[in-house]
């Protein structure tokens, strides 16, 4: 009989209110939206988008003060950490969320959807991501993951009358739940071996050589597989094309950027804080995921005729690039640090360029009524501005200098090449080949938009709503700025998760 846990009087946990201020602000906005919806019903609906947008901007204020303050804050016995890494990622999430709201504004009004609930769910999902960025504990990681996923399942199925949307929702939900189950099993194994859920303590337990390494391996494999689903890495990508196609396009943009980034955040936190020591287990795993994702994603993307499906496969390929630095991150501490900044850089730039591409797709698809690539032919004739913007985003995705995507890819190659591992060089070669393949299909779209004859008779200039213009402006600005002044982004993404010298 063990009675080593003495019963003490309950003590209120000390909470650093400044550290959780962004979460509280966001939550309050969500509650406010719900209340207004209850009280005013459809009278309040036109203001919901603006209100949630403002809410996100308001959330950025405490984020800024935290960034200026700059101290690392540890809450709840290490389960929740607010450091530079989490602040940068929270900022990325908020910006992505803001752009998605700009994209949604007109789309959701027009399409017979529930409006206030849509923004409520979007904010809830964003809340999950913000929580994910700070979670350093298996339980909070899992709660955050569910909090960001469940609203996403619902939003994917938001077009109730469209069977494709229903199919997408069901597929995403079933696959997501399956992945969660696998991941939870992995987490339970990790907890069983280490006896703790806090990631840094799991690391200590690994250091101390507790438990069986084979069980630990199994746990890590399952957890990584669960998040590989979230970031849609091959072979866990099968849901992506159908879900991207069926979901309302702003939701697709949200999934392809924010949801993916959240999966990466969790993966990074787990690997760098939790199992960094066991690099011999996760490095090969990541290597395979990266190589497969890049190759399969790009090859399949070549054959797509629907632009949203193409973006889905391009997203899979980009995941491969993003995850690649992790494959050598365990080589040495400095490589690990470089890999981390490379991934965060890539995430920030990818968010801007991918959201921008989706903004153009949403606008053009509204005009043409179709998401087939052929329907975008000759877009230059009726939407010159959009065509230019799209070209910028596409070439940035392909990694052409001097755009943001180039710098992101450059960082990845730098980490792979300087690691000094044969496997790293090999992966760099794979990545290089894939960059060329990717350029081909990105350029095809651009060529069609510029050079082909428009399929439509109506050549009046397309009408772009103010919110879409601002969304495009933000994305173009970030993409160009990070390409031309890469040191800017590098300054922000020089973050570290590794407790060096321990």
């Amino acid at each position, binding site marked *: 009989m063990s009675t080593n*846990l003495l019963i003490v009087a309950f003590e209120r946990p000390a909470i650093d209110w400044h550290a*959780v201020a962004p979460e509280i602000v966001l939550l309050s906005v969500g509650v406010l939206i719900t209340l207004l919806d209850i009280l005013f019903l459809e009278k309040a609906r036109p203001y919901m988008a603006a209100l949630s947008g403002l809410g996100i901007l308001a959330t950025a204020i405490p984020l800024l003060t935290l960034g200026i303050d700059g101290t690392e804050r540890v809450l*709840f*016995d290490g389960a929740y950490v607010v450091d530079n890494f989490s602040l940068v990622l929270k900022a990325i999430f908020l910006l992505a969320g803001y752009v998605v709201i700009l994209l949604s504004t007109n789309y959701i009004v027009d399409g017979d959807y529930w409006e206030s609930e849509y923004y409520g*769910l979007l904010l809830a999902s964003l809340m999950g991501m913000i929580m994910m960025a700070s979670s350093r504990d298996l339980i909070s990681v899992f*709660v955050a993951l569910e909090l960001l996923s*469940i609203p996403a399942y619902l939003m994917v199925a938001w077009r109730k009358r469209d069977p494709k949307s229903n199919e997408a929702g069901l597929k995403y939900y079933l696959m997501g739940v399956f992945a969660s189950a696998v991941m939870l099993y992995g987490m339970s194994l990790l907890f069983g*071996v280490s006896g703790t859920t806090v990631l840094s303590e799991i690391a200590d*337990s690994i250091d101390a050589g507790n438990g069986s390494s084979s069980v630990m391996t199994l746990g890590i494999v399952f957890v990584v597989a669960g998040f590989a689903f979230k970031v849609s890495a091959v072979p866990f990508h099968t849901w992506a094309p159908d879900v991207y196609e069926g979901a309302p396009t702003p939701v697709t943009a949200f999934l392809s950027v924010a949801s993916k980034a959240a999966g990466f955040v969790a993966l990074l936190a787990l690997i760098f804080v939790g199992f960094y020591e066991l690099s011999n287990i996760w490095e090969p795993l990541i290597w395979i995921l990266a190589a497969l994702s890049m190759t399969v994603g790009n090859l399949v993307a070549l054959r797509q005729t629907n632009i949203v499906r193409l973006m889905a496969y391009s997203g899979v390929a980009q995941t491969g690039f993003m995850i690649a630095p992790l494959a050598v991150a365990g080589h040495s501490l400095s490589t690990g640090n470089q890999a981390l900044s490379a991934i965060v850089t890539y995430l920030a730039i990818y968010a801007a360029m991918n959201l921008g591409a989706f903004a153009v797709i949403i606008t053009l698809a509204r005009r043409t009524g179709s998401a087939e690539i052929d329907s975008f032919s000759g877009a230059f004739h009726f939407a010159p501005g959009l065509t230019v913007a799209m070209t910028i985003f596409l070439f940035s995705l392909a990694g052409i200098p001097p755009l943001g995507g180039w710098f992101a890819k450059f960082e990845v190659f730098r980490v792979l090449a300087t690691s000094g591992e044969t496997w790293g060089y090999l992966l760099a070669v794979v990545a290089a080949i894939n960059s060329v393949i990717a350029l081909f299909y990105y350029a095809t779209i651009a060529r069609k938009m510029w050079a082909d004859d428009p399929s439509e008779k109506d050549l009046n200039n397309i009408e772009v709503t103010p919110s879409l213009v601002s969304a495009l402006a933000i994305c173009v600005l970030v993409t160009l700025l990070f390409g031309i002044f890469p040191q800017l982004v590098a300054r922000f993404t020089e973050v570290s998760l590794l407790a060096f010298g321990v």
Partner: protein
Amino acid sequence: METVVFLISAAVILSGALGVIFSKNPVHSALFMVQTLFGVAVLFVLLEATFLAAIQVIVYAGAIVILFVFVITLLGVDRAEDLKVEPISGQRPLAVVLGASIFGIILTVLIVAVGGPTGEQVANTPIGDASDNTKILGEALFSTHVFSVELTALLLTVAVVGAVVLSTRPTKPLISTLDKQQNDNLEDELEEKGEE
């Protein structure tokens, strides 16, 4: 004594789990699931986690699975279905092979695990005194994990909102922006109807 209880409940759990998969009738599957959950509850009691055991029965058996049964019987999908159709040929044997191999890997790993499958604690160490575990759990939830607990509340609210939204059609936009004209007409008609 403990071993005997463990073996019996393990048999109950595993046979229940197999029953869930192999029953042709969904209601029977649900009942086998209850059996499995009960077995797990017994294991919790064995580990002196009596609170968890009670909650396991109340929440899972009493709320979740009964809702499964509720939906199954209400929708009338409670007859055995023909599962012989195979949309992609070779899918089923492949699934069996993959499933069996994953099972094999897990089993092997757990058996050959050096130094026992678990590290810090032995698998059957109670977390504390049985009469106090409600207290221990409560304190853990509302101190270390309070943030997760609070956000779980948000999660559940979101799930409820989502379920309601997905199960009902939007009332207003049916007639909103697309054709305001028709909407106005309808409302006029409504008023006329009211006057009549």
